[in-house]
């Protein structure tokens, strides 16, 4: 008896809910929803920012493939409400892909607050990419790119991990929150700029604390990625002067293994980085072009290693002077330190840090010709 009553009650309730729900609940169906793909924040002054959203149009009759809206606002959610007044659809962030900040914002404003707000929202996923724009994000979104119909897909594909932009840290919201709250790291965000009709990735923005410090170029950014253990690095072009005149070559890096050891001391810290790089020698211009034929690759490899070591060391010392640590080197000292780790301790370590770099290059092939 009891089971029958229960089942009956269940079905009855389901029917009632379905029947009543279509009147009372305002469940917006899919076609009336404007899914924001890209959101851009531009700096106006200390309190205000300009919010621009780009919404792709699915209808094939639409004139433009993307709709953009801009408002000036103090709070992010307030801005969204203002935008809803301009658009006929309900704005949701379920499919947000890219967040853009302009350079001024990252230097003067507080991007941590904005990203924290997005991180807090349950509907925004964790894999949303972040990038810093040189001029204004609004201009970048509103510009009509001739051979890229939809800015949403264009930017998303540009910032995704790919082999040729291996220096790109592909920072997502989660990565940013992780590095900014972790006293061991300093955040890095890719830097993009409009170059006539295309968007180009100029380099990587380095942060100290919550503000952007400076822009570093792709070659140096590659070092950060290499230290963090990224396996597939971009093709590396080098200019060497190791006793055979000026030589230029391009190595297609196939694999990278890194090992880091620290001497566990807080008073005189020393780190040993060992890289093992395997690559294909694609092109060479210089004195030793006979290396292709005689197979005297070993010498070339040693020279390449030495050059790389010098470059890496130079870059790391530069970082130490700036007191920023995007690659998390101080983690290897935190592991052996008892007590709370803080940013001050990190900067302390960086001040005194000595780095020893060993690179072992193996050129595994030189193409199909002998």
């Amino acid at each position, binding site marked *: 008896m009891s089971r029958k009553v229960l089942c009956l009650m269940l*079905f009855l309730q389901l029917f009632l809910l*379905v029947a009543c*729900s279509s009147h009372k609940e305002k469940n917006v169906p899919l076609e009336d929803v404007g*899914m924001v793909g890209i959101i851009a924040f531009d700096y106006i002054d200390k309190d205000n920012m300009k919010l621009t959203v780009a919404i792709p149009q699915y209808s094939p009759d639409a004139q433009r493939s993307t709709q953009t809206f801009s408002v000036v606002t103090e709070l992010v959610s307030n801005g969204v409400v203002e935008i809803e007044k301009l658009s006929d659809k309900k704005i949701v962030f379920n499919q947000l892909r890219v967040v853009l900040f302009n350079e001024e914002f990252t230097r003067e404003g507080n991007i941590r607050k904005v990203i924290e707000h997005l991180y807090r929202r349950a509907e925004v996923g964790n894999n949303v990419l972040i990038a810093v724009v040189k001029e204004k994000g609004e201009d970048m979104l509103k510009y009509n790119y001739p051979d890229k119909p939809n800015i949403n897909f264009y930017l998303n594909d540009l910032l995704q991990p790919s082999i040729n932009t291996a220096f790109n840290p592909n920072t997502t919201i989660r990565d940013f929150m992780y590095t900014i709250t972790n006293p061991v790291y300093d955040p890095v965000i890719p830097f993009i700029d409009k170059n006539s009709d295309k968007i180009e990735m100029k380099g990587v923005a380095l942060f100290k604390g919550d503000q952007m410090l400076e822009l570093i170029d792709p070659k140096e950014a590659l070092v950060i990625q290499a230290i963090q253990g990224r396996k597939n690095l971009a093709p590396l072009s080098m200019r060497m002067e190791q006793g055979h005149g000026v030589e230029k070559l391009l190595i297609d890096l196939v694999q990278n293994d890194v090992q880091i050891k620290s001497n566990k001391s807080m008073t005189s810290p020393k780190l040993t980085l060992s890289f093992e790089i395997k690559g294909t020698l694609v092109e060479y211009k210089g004195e030793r072009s006979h290396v292709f034929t005689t197979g005297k690759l070993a010498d070339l490899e040693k020279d390449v290693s030495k050059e790389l070591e010098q470059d890496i060391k130079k870059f790391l010392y530069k970082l130490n002077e700036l007191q920023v640590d995007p690659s998390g080197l101080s983690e290897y000292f935190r592991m052996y330190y008892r007590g709370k780790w803080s940013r001050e301790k990190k900067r302390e370590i960086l001040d005194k840090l000595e780095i020893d770099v060993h690179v072992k290059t193996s050129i595994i092939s030189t193409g199909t010709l002998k």
Partner: protein
Amino acid sequence: MEEKEQQVIDNIKQQTQDIDDVVFKKMATDAGVVTIIYFSSLIEKMTLQTMVFIPLTNHINQIFQVSETIDLQDMDVILQKLNAGQSLLFFHKPALLQVIDTYSAPTRSITNTETESTVIGPQDAFTESLETNISLLKRRIQNPMLKNEILTVGTETNIKIAMLYMDNIVNKENLDLLRKRIDEIQYPFFSDISELKQLIEDNPLSPFPQYYMSVRPDSVSQYLVDGRIVLIMDNSQAAIVCPTSFFEMFVSVEDYYNRWTTASLLRMLRFFGFFLTIMITPMYISALTFQTEILPYELLLNLQESRSKVPFPPLIEVLFIELIIEILREAGSRMPAKVGQTIGIVGGIVIGTAAVEAGLLSNILIVLVATSALLSFLPPIFLLSNTSRFVRYIFILSAGVFGLYGLMLAFSWLFAHLLRLNSLGTPYMTPIVPRNARDLFDSIIRFPTKYLNAKKGISRAQKK
């Protein structure tokens, strides 16, 4: 003619007053005058000739050896025998009533089945005659331990059912329970054994079938040897096997004829197909109404485009098209064959394509619903595919109300319900939930035949 004999004949005539196919034939034989009484609709003329007329005229002693004596006054027995197709021989002189079994009503010959056909394996199927069916089983199990009890059901109709089991393997408690249940039935008429099935099941209110039903003697005899009990009813083509488990509903006898790799693949397809068919359209509803973030971006844009023309919310759209498919299915099975083809084309092409072009339905949804309709026909037992049609509506409604959360609630209802069911005392979800390792070899994945020796725990067979 003596008074007493005339009285007997008048009595019988009175009881069979409006039954116009009764025949009273008087014959003169060596033993005196004999009145032969029978129902001509149940007896074929040749049978009557060979069994009654010819022996009566030539070797009348044979009659006495073959026939049975019944009491002159016992009208109930007389009528019952007459109704069972037996011929009454009333010998006037010694006032003796003999009866010979001459039942030979026309029956269908053994053909192959249309509903449960297989590519390889025996193709014969049960017919509506009880004797033929029992013979189909007995020729496969030539063992004196195959017992065969005949019971009658139906208060108005007295239909015979046969309960078959292997005496050395079957569990006696199951037998007693089943016998008790059949004895307790008070129902006037059974047109098919599936009606009987609904009255002797453990949980008659559940949408899931708890006994296995089949028209193939090869699968039924396999279950007999496994220690199950089989019920066959006269005038009914199917046989029911009890007890059974949920996972056996996805087993077709062809799985045993195929090799184990193909068999396992097909079984997994059927099993997951059952769950897919109840899940596809509810997932569509919840992904479009409530949780749009679970779909990738490009797919979502596609969906937005196809849904932009449709004026209804996804739930109504899905219910609408599900109902159309149900209508097509029902109409297709009721329609006479000549008209069926045309209407089928009308239904499929016109309604499908034209509706999309008119903007009443979205084309992605039609693909999904058609796939789920196809998937619902996968289980070999027809009753289970009907169940999935019903269960799908529950899932659609819950998904329409609460999205993915409602879908999971519906799933927990389904699991809780399945776990409660029993099939003649054995839990419905063995071998997964009361776990039985040996049985797992033959559930969703079928291991090679040489490992499949042991009797299944489902039948709780006797230990040797």
